[in-house]
């Protein structure tokens, strides 16, 4: 573990596919199997579990918290649920019928907090918003020309443009304009298009590999995306794609902008990676939380009172022998290169100062939530 790690929460014994902190960073929601767990953060302490949101009956794939504190979850059971926080700390669920016939894969609140988008394996993005008259969350579909599963979504800070990436190798930008909710002023002087009718395809860019993560940089009118073949890409309104390759070459799953010229990515290499823009375009900058030269030894854990036979050294040497059999290609059992022990699934900005992200949080297949200093 290096000094770039601020906090390391070991919260689950199963993969965490998605996590989200509330606006004031007091609440942490994360997916765990077919539930969503809500934790209250305690300074210098272990997060306290305050609620379990159990209504899904298949794996929950994504969770997001709006600026108003509403939690939305989506699941492989093809539904999304909006959870309204109540004064007693519990949450009131409202089912959102997405009208899709395959799993929902990702969900994102629009910056306004009044609508959200759900990506799915049914080649559909559902834009959902609340209708007062019917007391009902309405789901409107964006279908064309998506050809395969939607992996990731990102709302532009203007709240209308929605970027998505998927397994068809395309990054697309759609308009998620909802009449009565959005106004044309939000996209006046946008360099991307003149008109934004609902569902219109504004731009599309071909990459070829699976797109795992997209992120807008509103102030720069740029879009970053990361792919399964380990590249970090930035595209702007002129359609010029700038690509930087990640030297380790492992797939990248998520991307967060740090400032206008830096972005941090995470993926199968279990630690965040920083890309930066210099005179020669975008380039790999550095690994965060990866000890290359000094491999940190992890204290061998022979816990429990199992080694109480007459000759303890015999028991330990036998244990070591079996551990060595289970090296799986590693040089030694006693090596831990980075805090995450498995792939990072999602990164999110955690702390910001004057428009620059200073800390990012991550969740991974190892059931950990880690906060890094960038």
């Amino acid at each position, binding site marked *: 573990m290096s000094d770039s790690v601020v906090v390391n929460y070991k919260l689950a014994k199963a993969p965490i596919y998605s996590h989200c902190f509330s606006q004031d960073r007091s609440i942490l929601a994360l997916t765990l199997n077919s539930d969503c767990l809500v934790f209250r953060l305690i300074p210098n302490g272990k997060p306290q579990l305050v609620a379990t949101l159990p209504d899904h009956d298949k794996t929950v794939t994504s969770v997001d918290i709006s600026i108003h504190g509403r939690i939305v979850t989506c699941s492989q059971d093809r539904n999304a649920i909006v959870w309204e926080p109540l004064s007693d700390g519990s949450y009131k669920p409202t089912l959102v019928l997405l009208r899709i016939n395959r799993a929902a894969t990702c969900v994102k609140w629009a910056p306004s907090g009044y609508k959200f988008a759900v990506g799915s394996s049914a080649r559909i993005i559902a834009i959902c918003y609340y209708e007062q008259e019917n007391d009902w969350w309405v789901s409107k579909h964006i279908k064309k020309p998506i050809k*395969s599963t939607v992996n990731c979504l990102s709302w532009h800070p203007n709240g209308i443009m929605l970027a998505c990436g998927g397994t*068809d*190798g395309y990054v697309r930008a759609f308009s998620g304009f909802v009449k009565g909710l959005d106004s044309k002023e939000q996209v006046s002087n946008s360099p991307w298009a003149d008109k934004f009718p609902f569902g219109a395809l504004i731009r599309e860019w071909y990459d*070829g590999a699976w797109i795992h993560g997209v992120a807008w940089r509103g102030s720069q009118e740029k879009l970053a995306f990361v792919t399964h*073949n*380990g590249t970090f890409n930035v595209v702007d309104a002129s359609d010029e794609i700038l690509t930087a390759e990640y*030297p*380790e*070459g*492992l797939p990248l799953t998520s991307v967060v902008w740090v400032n206008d010229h830096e972005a941090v990515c995470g993926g199968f290499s279990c630690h965040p990676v920083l890309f930066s823009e210099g005179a020669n375009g975008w380039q790999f900058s550095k690994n965060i939380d990866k000890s290359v030269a000094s491999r940190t030894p992890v204290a061998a854990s022979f816990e429990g009172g199992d080694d109480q036979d007459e000759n303890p050294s015999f028991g330990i040497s036998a244990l070591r022998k079996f551990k060595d059999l289970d090296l799986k290609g590693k040089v030694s059992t006693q090596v831990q290169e980075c805090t995450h022990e498995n792939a990072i699934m999602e990164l999110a900005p955690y702390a910001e100062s004057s428009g620059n992200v200073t800390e990012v949080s991550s969740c991974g297949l190892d059931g950990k939530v880690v906060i890094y200093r960038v």
Partner: protein
Amino acid sequence: MEDWRRIDIDAFDPDSGRLNAEDLTPPNLKVVSASEIEPRISQLRSAATSGDFASALQLVTNDPPYGADETTKTRYFEAVLSVLTQVRQAEIANLVKQLSLKQVDVLIKYLYKGMSVPEGQKQGGILLSWFEKVTQNSGVAPVVRYLSDRRTV
């Protein structure tokens, strides 16, 4: 209960549409015809017979015929395979070092293609030593890129 996992849900929804092979072919591929490829094959063979493997390898890894049809690709691949297998074991490491990142990515595609067809499997040993030298040089990155690249050789 009926095995619901096997129900073809798309059959109930005519609009749903399936992903087919055409959807996966990359757009804007330059079409390469069989007649264009013949001179390149003879170029390759002559470079190989004169023992100039460095330039033969440059030919192989620059501008591979992604847009050609399957038979043309196979014909071209036979020439590539004969080049790869004629190189002596000791020279491989040196040749791999001279390639750029992009060229290594192409080379990996030919190595995997070689291992997937019977002609190449007969020469499996030499293909594996190429593979070994490539991964020693640039790690697993070319392999990951091979897996996700839809432009095939």
